[in-house]
């Protein structure tokens, strides 16, 4: 193991003495997911790991990776596994690949009860029920009785509660997520609130990485376009918005003109006609207020118009929901002179983080995907702000 790394495995509650060189793993979290996940690949040259029950669904696997006093900690269970081929004749040997998920996943009950109150209150209660030791919820508006009806708690939150959740400002989607922090906190916050928080990490990407000793130096930064819909946004048509997502909550929407890449038109919802044809009864007018939340939720894939994938030396502080302050430099007027790049530098929100242990090299590194919005929504848009924009 590299000097400074301390890797602790616990299998089924007992510390396992696995050689670090025979192990590869990745641990991940995201603001769009409740349960942190991971992959674990164990070299099983003799087949004894399989023989001793490592290929068991629900097997508890805890991984702590400590580096320089900073810890990343996961308490997971095996959700799935595979072993593709044997490496020795007559033995079920070879790599054993396991999909991991937070142990809170197994605490789900799929209950058939009801929850009454604000969505943030309901999620707080559910979070505790499924084993999150802490919750940090931004209050949502609107009270109602919600029926779990046998859904797993995670599905109930993501499919039923989140689309109806909005904070008082009601401008951005509401995210509920667990991270790889050692406190095992379940967070619930709007993207706007997350974005407005103070940067917790300074990251520099420059040919002269030691310019700011307070910053962590990025190994690599590339634009990350997976899941981005920039081409959709550039279209002057309504097809940029997922009509399937929106059809139930709006009967019309407008194409506004935003300041995106020189003022291209931006398909974006306004407050026009926020009424579905289903909502006509006197007794259910109360539900109208949740329609705004659903409109905002339907726009979640458009919430970021810029994303970067940043590779860092192992950094447990780079977790989803944090804001980073990126310093990117560009060549200056003279040799060896670098100036701050104004476009990419600035605040970015960490949407997802992945922390990798590479057994062969006995080293760890972190990858984060960060996003921001670089548009000025048109007048009347439900997506407000210009947050995270320079």
């Amino acid at each position, binding site marked *: 193991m590299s000097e400074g790394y301390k890797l602790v495995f616990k299998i089924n509650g007992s510390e396992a003495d696995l050689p670090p060189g025979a192990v590869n793993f990745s641990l991940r979290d995201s603001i769009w997911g409740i349960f942190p996940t991971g992959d674990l690949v164990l070299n099983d040259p003799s087949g004894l790991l399989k023989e001793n029950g490592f290929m068991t669904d629900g097997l508890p696997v805890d991984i702590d990776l400590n580096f320089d006093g900073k810890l990343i900690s996961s308490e997971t269970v095996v959700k799935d596994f595979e072993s593709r081929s044997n490496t020795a004749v007559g033995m079920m040997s070879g790599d054993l690949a396991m999909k991991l998920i937070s142990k809170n996943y197994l605490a789900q009950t799929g209950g058939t*009860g009801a929850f009454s109150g604000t969505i943030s209150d309901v999620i707080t209660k559910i979070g505790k029920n499924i084993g999150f030791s802490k919750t940090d919820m931004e209050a949502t508006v609107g009270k109602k009785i*919600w029926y779990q009806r046998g859904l797993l708690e995670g599905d109930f939150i993501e499919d039923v509660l989140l689309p109806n959740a909005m904070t008082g400002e009601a401008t951005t989607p509401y995210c509920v997520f667990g991270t790889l922090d050692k406190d095992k906190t379940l967070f619930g916050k709007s993207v706007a609130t997350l974005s407005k928080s103070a940067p917790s990490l300074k990251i520099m990407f420059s040919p002269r990485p030691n310019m700011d000793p307070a910053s962590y130096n990025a190994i690599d930064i590339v634009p990350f376009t997976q899941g981005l819909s920039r081409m959709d946004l550039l279209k002057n048509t309504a097809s940029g918005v997922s009509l399937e997502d929106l059809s139930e909550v709006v009967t019309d929407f407008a194409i506004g003109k935003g300041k995106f890449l020189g003022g291209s038109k931006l398909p974006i919802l306004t407050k026009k006609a926020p009424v579905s044809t289903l909502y006509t009864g006197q*007794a259910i007018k109360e*539900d109208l207020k949740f329609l705004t939340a659903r409109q905002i939720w339907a726009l979640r894939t458009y919430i970021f118009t810029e994303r970067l994938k940043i590779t860092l030396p192992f950094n447990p502080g780079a977790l989803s929901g944090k804001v980073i302050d990126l310093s990117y430099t560009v060549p200056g007027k003279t040799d060896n002179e670098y100036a701050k790049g104004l476009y990419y530098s600035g605040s970015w929100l960490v949407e997802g983080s992945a922390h990798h242990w590479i057994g062969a090299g006995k080293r760890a590194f972190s990858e984060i995907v960060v996003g921001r919005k670089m548009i000025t929504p048109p007048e009347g848009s439900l997506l407000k702000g210009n947050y995270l924009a320079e």
Partner: protein
Amino acid sequence: MVDTIFRVASVISDIDPDKLGRIQVRVLPEMKDVKDDELPWAMPLALDTEHRVPKIGEQLYVYIETPFWSNFWYVNETPWSKTKYPFAKMKAELKVADYVPEYPQPSFVSYPSGSYDFEDEITGAMGFMHKSGTYVYFDKDGKLDIMYTKSFKIHDKDNKYLVTMDTDADEMVISGKNITITADKVKVKAGGDFVALFTPLAKILKKLLTHIHISPGPGPTGPALEGSQTPLSALSADIDLIKSTVMKTD
């Protein structure tokens, strides 16, 4: 994406505090652990002109908005798939005049009590049949046929004016302060053997009294009285006692 599904649910309460026709339902098994007071109120999926609130314990279809399960509507009938399609039953039970249901007519509503509302949308015949067999029926030409099985009553709000027919009492009663029958001829048959011709005797006698005629002859149109004959006004005290009597004519 919001969609809708049909599910069978049990009626838990029919007392809608807002009196909007809503019922509280429990969808099983998804709501088996929900406390009664937290169960959803389902709106009627019915015409604006309809009102029938299902009873507690009834099972019916509810129409649920998914994935949120935030709005519920109910179909105001017990699902026929649980029993049989009701047309054959209606055809066997609907006994109204000479009307014969021919599928797919008539459109009808059968009530849990056994009564029917029906309308033949081709011919225009329509009616209502009570579970007792009593019916009110308009045939295709609008001819009205009312058949009662026990009694029939038409009356004002104070029962001062009324017409009743009661099969148990074997009686028909017409009551009112003044009853006027205007006809050239009134025939009354009381029993099978008597057909009587009534003369409005009282009216004739009153006429005689208001005209002072003295006549030795028989009748009001005879010559004036002469001598010491007694005027008919002396008989006035008996006029109100005059009653029509049934006279056998043949």
